[in-house]
């Protein structure tokens, strides 16, 4: 059997499709998620970045105060 024969066989496979209600539900959920960032990007990442930035600022302020004393 060649690749062409395989393709010919595959063409005869019954067509499968999800039912329209299921398709509509998936599309609806995907629309809601479109462009929305996942939990890591939307929540955890900003929290970590904010914490790191705050830490650096606090450390800088403390260092400046230590020098000024």
């Amino acid at each position: 059997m060649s690749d062409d024969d395989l393709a010919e066989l595959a063409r005869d496979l019954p067509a499968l499709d999800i039912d329209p209600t299921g398709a509509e539900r998936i599309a609806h959920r995907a629309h809601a998620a479109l462009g929305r960032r996942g939990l890591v990007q939307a929540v955890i990442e900003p929290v970590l970045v904010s914490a790191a930035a705050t830490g650096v600022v606090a450390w800088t302020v403390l260092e400046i105060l230590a020098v000024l004393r």
Partner: protein
Amino acid sequence: MVRCTGVDPEAAALVDGLRRGDRAAFDSVFTAYRRKLYGYLARMTRRRDVAEDLLQETFLRLARHATRLAPDTRLAPWLFTVAHRLVVSWARAQAVRAQLAGELCGEAAAPERSPLEAVADSQAQLALERAFGALAPAYREVALLVGVEGMAPAEVAEILGLRADAVRQRLSRARDQLAAELGELAPARPAAKPGRTA
């Protein structure tokens, strides 16, 4: 994930739309790939309910990742890569579940018609569906991606994370097993032609 330089303008426009979070572009992609992905997922899991869940997860991942797609993303390999990974995860979970339950793992054919076989219109289609179902998942996957989706072995290799020659080997075994399963129903032409290469 899956990128290249030669993307056709229509596909590039869809990717561009997705990157902008455009619903119309998403709907076009959904319409274009829904049946292909569902067929692949249903034939890999042998369960329509699981296929529906995995199809949803595939498109949810596309939706969440849409704005971060590279401009030269090829959608078909991207979507099939996600679908393949979901199938692998599902199969692993199934194996663990079966082991915990002390059941014999595997895809032993049910005595009655499977939901996939029930859609067959003729005995030939039924035999064909059963022959594909009888293939080991690794061979079935390659046969579906090359035979049904018309992908080149190199493209399939990219999706499955394999070398192209490993894909060609699996494809060769899949063809042999299909021919053996189908017997007289298999195309009678000799397998002298070289395999499709990328």
